[in-house]
């Protein structure tokens, strides 16, 4: 039996996404394929798998082969995100488990968000200039508002990633 669930997560909430997938696993729902908000699950033994996500810059066959050799299954790739699962052996399933590699993973996510923020910031700036230099048009106001929301959201996202990085540095 398969079932599709709809749920949205922000990029910076990927740990919550992992937690949710693991909770679904506890209930016997095992992820088959991820999608933008749409997750397809298959009914299977509860707790059969543990799940993890990774933001990848290197998606080479070499890396994927390496992961698979250690018992990790690649369920899906979505944009820069890889979805993994591993048979539950009672130990936590992590892709990175030391400070250095955890931080460099988060820095990759931060870099992606920053590039996005700069682009959106440029659109926002252009829109504002346009609003004052051409005849007033209510659609300019709408688009400026939308870009402003996006810019604020991504700024918040970068702040959240920074908070996680700081937390990791403190623990170790």
């Amino acid at each position, binding site marked *: 039996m398969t079932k599709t669930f709809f749920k949205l997560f922000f990029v910076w909430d990927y740990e919550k996404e992992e937690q949710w997938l693991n909770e679904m696993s506890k209930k016997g729902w095992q992820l088959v394929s991820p999608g933008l908000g749409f997750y397809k699950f298959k009914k299977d033994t509860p707790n059969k798998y543990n799940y993890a996500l*990774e933001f990848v810059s290197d998606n080479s066959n*070499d*890396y994927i*082969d*390496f*992961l*698979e*050799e*250690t*018992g*990790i299954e690649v369920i899906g790739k979505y944009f820069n995100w890889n979805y993994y699962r591993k048979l539950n052996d009672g*130990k936590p399933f*992590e*892709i*990175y*488990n*030391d400070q*250095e*590699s955890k931080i*460099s*993973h988060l820095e990759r996510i931060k870099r992606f968000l920053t590039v996005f923020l700069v682009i959106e910031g440029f659109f926002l700036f252009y829109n504002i200039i346009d609003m004052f230099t051409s005849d007033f048009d209510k659609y300019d106001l709408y688009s400026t508002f939308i870009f402003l929301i996006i810019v604020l959201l991504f700024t918040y996202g970068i702040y959240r990633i920074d908070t996680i990085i700081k937390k990791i540095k403190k623990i170790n």
Partner: protein
Amino acid sequence: MENITLTEAYYYILLSLFEPLHGYGIMQKVETMSNGRLTLAAGTLYGALTSLIDKEWIEALPQEKGSRKKEYIITALGKEIAKIELKRLEELVANGKKIMEVI
């Protein structure tokens, strides 16, 4: 070169590669050597291996035909580094024993 301090993970990876091993083999060996204290997650290990190859402390062996398993082995330079680290660790232990008088 005398002032290199290895992380635990790097030291154990170098030790485990005195014989050729593939990724999963390294994970198991490191875990056994450290009595389960040190586990290396797959992504962490892959990153460490990549950086050890860059430093030329280890190298990947040519893959057998049809096999997707890659094996790694320590290089002469890697052995040198491991020896320097061993000396450093011996010094730490010797001083610890001397001062804490646990001999």
